[in-house]
């Protein structure tokens, strides 16, 4: 940061108060839910407070599926935005290879990202051939079960402490007029939840072997059979949750209409916006209370190549701002995710975030599915599981057979 502060001090002095280096930087992202919007506002605030540049918000609603084509078209069309959000991993590989994204290694070195980013795998996911192309901004983990305390109370049950207890509570919840489990209709939520079952009930190694190495034998094996059995249980529990968006599903838990939901830690942002208190109003079980492990995926910002020097300077400044300690704290508290640097103070974090930080510190981490699978494979998994969870006529065995097929053909 210091290097940049000096740099900016120098340029501002040189330009003697003219706004020559104040560029408008258009930032495209798909963070439009309540918690997400509040979090991204922190970025904009910090960016504008610490630099002379202006954050032009280019939010696109409808999730990555709507936003990504727009982003990619803009970059390919030769009219790129200043910066854009992607889930890092394999999604941006080809854009980097085609030379469309800026090499941010200089900023990374000046800021010492190598030393501060924790776990280092986050930076590895941004690195291609030794050069760094993106700025990781948070750690998101998928392996959380969110439970509504009031819903269980209403059904006269104790709040479960693990997946099996939760499944066992299903019929009683339903009798009390509560949907046992909420699941949004969008495909990514179905495959996401399944991957969580796989990482926790099967274990991180199973997931790593299947998605990382494409081990079809493992995919057909007994460990996965159990996971598919659990998925069939889950299918019973989600019947009747007629919502589309993930945050509408979370809202069912918040309003005690549903017992629980498997969703990433971003769900926490929604609980926070609704004024719910962890431990009191809701309970979170990392690793479904079975296998306390979290994946270290997350969001990252990429910076397209532009031929305007002012924009480039603004890109550098944004990259630096995103990772500075104050921004990290402010942003992640709102987003419900974990900061990418271990050296920041998260006193204000709630119980659930603290659990996450502990697990992160203990080293029980695994790579995110996005880092192992291409979007193509993910899309096929989406198709399979969204169908499986919505259509009770598909048996667990049939689904597993199709799953093996996808794994065998993945690249």
């Amino acid at each position: 940061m210091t290097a940049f502060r000096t740099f900016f001090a120098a340029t501002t002095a040189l330009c003697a108060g003219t706004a020559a280096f104040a560029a408008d930087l258009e930032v495209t992202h798909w963070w439009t839910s309540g918690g997400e919007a509040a979090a991204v506002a922190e970025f904009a605030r910090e960016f504008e407070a610490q630099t002379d540049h202006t954050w032009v918000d280019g939010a696109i609603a409808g999730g990555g599926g709507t936003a990504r084509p727009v982003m990619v078209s803009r970059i390919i069309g030769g009219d790129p935005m200043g910066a854009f959000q992607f889930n890092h991993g394999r999604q941006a590989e080809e854009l980097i290879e085609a030379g469309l994204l800026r090499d941010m290694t200089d900023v990374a070195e000046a800021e010492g990202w190598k030393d501060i980013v924790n776990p280092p795998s986050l930076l590895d996911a941004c690195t291609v051939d030794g050069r760094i192309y993106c700025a990781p901004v948070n750690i998101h983990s998928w392996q959380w079960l969110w439970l509504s305390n009031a819903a269980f109370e209403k059904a006269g049950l104790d709040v479960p402490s693990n997946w099996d207890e939760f499944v066992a509570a299903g019929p009683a919840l339903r009798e009390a007029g509560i949907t046992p489990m909420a699941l949004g209709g969008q495909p990514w939520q179905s495959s996401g939840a399944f991957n969580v079952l796989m990482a926790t009930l099967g274990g991180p190694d199973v997931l790593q072997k299947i998605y990382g190495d494409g081990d079809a034998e493992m995919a057909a094996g007994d460990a996965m059979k159990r996971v598919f059995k659990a998925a069939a249980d889950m299918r019973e529990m989600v019947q009747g949750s007629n919502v589309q968006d993930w945050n509408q599903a979370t809202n069912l838990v918040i309003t005690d209409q549903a017992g629980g939901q498997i969703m990433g830690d971003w769900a926490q942002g929604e609980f926070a916006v609704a004024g719910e208190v962890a431990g009191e109003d809701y309970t979170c079980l990392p690793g479904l209370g079975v296998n306390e492990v979290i994946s270290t995926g997350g969001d990252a910002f990429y910076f397209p190549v532009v031929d305007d020097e002012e924009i480039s300077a603004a890109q550098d400044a944004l990259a630096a701002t995103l990772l500075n300690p104050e921004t990290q704290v402010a942003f992640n508290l709102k987003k419900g995710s974990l900061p990418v640097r271990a050296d920041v103070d998260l006193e204000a974090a709630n119980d659930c975030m603290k659990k996450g930080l502990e697990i992160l510190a203990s080293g029980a981490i695994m790579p995110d599915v996005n880092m192992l699978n291409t979007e193509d494979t993910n899309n096929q998994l989406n198709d399979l599981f969204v169908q499986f969870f919505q259509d009770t006529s598909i048996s667990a065995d049939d689904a597993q057979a199709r799953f093996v097929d996808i794994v065998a053909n993945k690249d």
Partner: protein
Amino acid sequence: MSDPATMSAAVVGSDAASGALSGPRGPKPRRRFSRRNVFIYGTLIVVALYYLLPLYVMIVTSLKGMPEIRLGNIFAPPVEVTFQPWVKAWSEACTGLNCDGLSRGFWNSVRITVPSVLLSIAIASVNGYALANWRFKGADAFFTILIFGAFIPYQVMLYPIVILLREMGIYGTLGGLVMVHSIFGMPILTLLFRNYFTSLPEELFKAARVDGAGFWQIYLQIMLPMSLPIFVVAMILQVTGIWNDFLFGVVYTKPDLYPMTVQLNNIVNSVQGVKEYNVNMAATLLTGLVPLVIYFVSGKLFVRGIAAGAVKG
């Protein structure tokens, strides 16, 4: 005809209202309260109610508060009328950090729609005229390709057009989007104009040719003045089509040019907490207002033009 006076008055009335539309051609009705009339009017009224139902539900929903929506019957009129959803949809609804609702998109939509409509109609009418009256060699082949283009799913063309626009250096500009709209409006409009010009008496054209009039002269002085109805149809089709477009607006522009539909999608899909159905419905109505108004104002001309253009071909 038990009551010929009323009946003929009605016929005259409807004729006068529909302008040049020739009167109904069906078998003549006999009595006002015959079983047949009850059947006809009954069916039409039921069908009309069915068609109006969604509009009605949109309007009442947009005027209710959220608590009332949660409790209630979607068909019930609002107990307490509130315009808050409309205000919110127009100027307060948030997408990401932009909390200025649909208002931003409205002028963008105007800026996109006006030039796109003018350009696409200009091109298509000349095409139609050239195809109908100047049948040069190969014209039918191009026309067939064009019609084929009417069927191509837009998604297929998305990518090649990104590349095309990039090579022309107009990607992301208003000009680029106007061009895209003109291209994709061309097939149906050309068909429409071609059919219309074919239906005009050929003697007019021949006489003008004998008098030595050229391509543009005939187009401007003879064809144009005779084609008002078809121009109105084309205009309505294009205004509604372009105003309602979402895909091109989102893919070929950038945020400061996003049309209203993109903003609508953003508002509807930016669920912050609970889905605010009333705001969504108000936003939907606001977005649909322009095409609806144009349609209601010029509805008669539209039917007339359809009769003249699409059908006689």
